[in-house]
């Protein structure tokens, strides 16, 4: 211990250590941290836009005109799984796996539509009555990820 101390002293004596005055930095932090704490929002809220076909002339004028759909894709959401329909393509029904809905299978089938009709961006989802809102939002997320941003809901 003594030896160490003495060598350290010696070394320091040579280096001529400069001491940083950190008080100013601390002051800045002390102001900034409470300020940011007050303004911080920990929950970010977003919206998913959904436009219904208009029955009303006035709001139809406001709504942007929809591009012509190339193909009609329909996704049925049931308690027992998904059922995807697209012209000229045959899909097997996707059941429930151990972790709930078969998202991977759905992504695969959507990919097949995308390769056959690269321009197609529209899809109609048709959930059953007792499907949860959470599931519908999840499906919409997956559809957007797969490249179908124009989602319509049909009851």
């Amino acid at each position: 211990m003594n030896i160490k101390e003495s060598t350290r002293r010696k070394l320091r004596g040579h280096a001529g250590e400069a001491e940083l005055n950190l008080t100013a930095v601390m002051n800045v932090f002390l102001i900034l941290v409470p300020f940011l704490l007050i303004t911080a929002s920990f929950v970010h809220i977003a919206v998913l836009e959904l436009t219904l076909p208009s029955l009303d002339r006035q709001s139809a004028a406001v709504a942007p005109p929809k591009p012509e759909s190339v193909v009609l894709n329909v996704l049925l959401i049931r308690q027992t799984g998904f059922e995807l329909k697209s012209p000229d393509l045959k899909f097997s029904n996707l059941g429930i796996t151990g972790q709930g809905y078969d998202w991977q299978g759905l992504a695969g089938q959507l990919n097949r539509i995308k390769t056959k009709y690269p321009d197609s961006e529209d899809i109609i989802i048709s959930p059953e009555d007792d499907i949860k809102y959470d599931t519908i939002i999840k499906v919409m997320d997956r559809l957007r990820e797969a490249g179908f941003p124009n989602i319509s809901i049909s009851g």
Partner: protein
Amino acid sequence: MIDIKRKSRHAKKSTFALKLTPLIDMMTILLVFLLKSYSAEGQIVTVTQDLRLPESTADTRPRVTSVVAVTSEWILLDGRPISRVRRVLDSDRLLIPELSQELTRLRAISQGIGDMSNQMAGFQGNIAIQGDREITFDLLKRIMLTCGRIGYNNMLLTVLQRN
């Protein structure tokens, strides 16, 4: 590190140097974390109590609109209770009469504002729907139908953003 100085100073007067380095470390981490969650726009959407919004990867910013909130018990329009969910689900008709009536009134008001001055937005057909994640599509369908019937065709489904 400041052993020597402290010792020598200690001999003269009885002051002691504070070890600020760990404090600075902590503050820096805190600062970075808070800066990350900082948003300049502030929150324009307030979420109704006992409402658990679904999570989504959507990143469209919310707009200021009227809000239909659907909890597991009540349907609220701009914070005012409109109808009980159970009553709506028990009904055979898809249209919800109470909501329809209130929305018609709301539409008349915003149209009136739009007519009064060109600078006001007036009626644009936007409505935000804040739904609890547990509500069924049956209920959502009825609400969407009612909103659409009145002319509120652009629905903004409010969700929690997942990072």
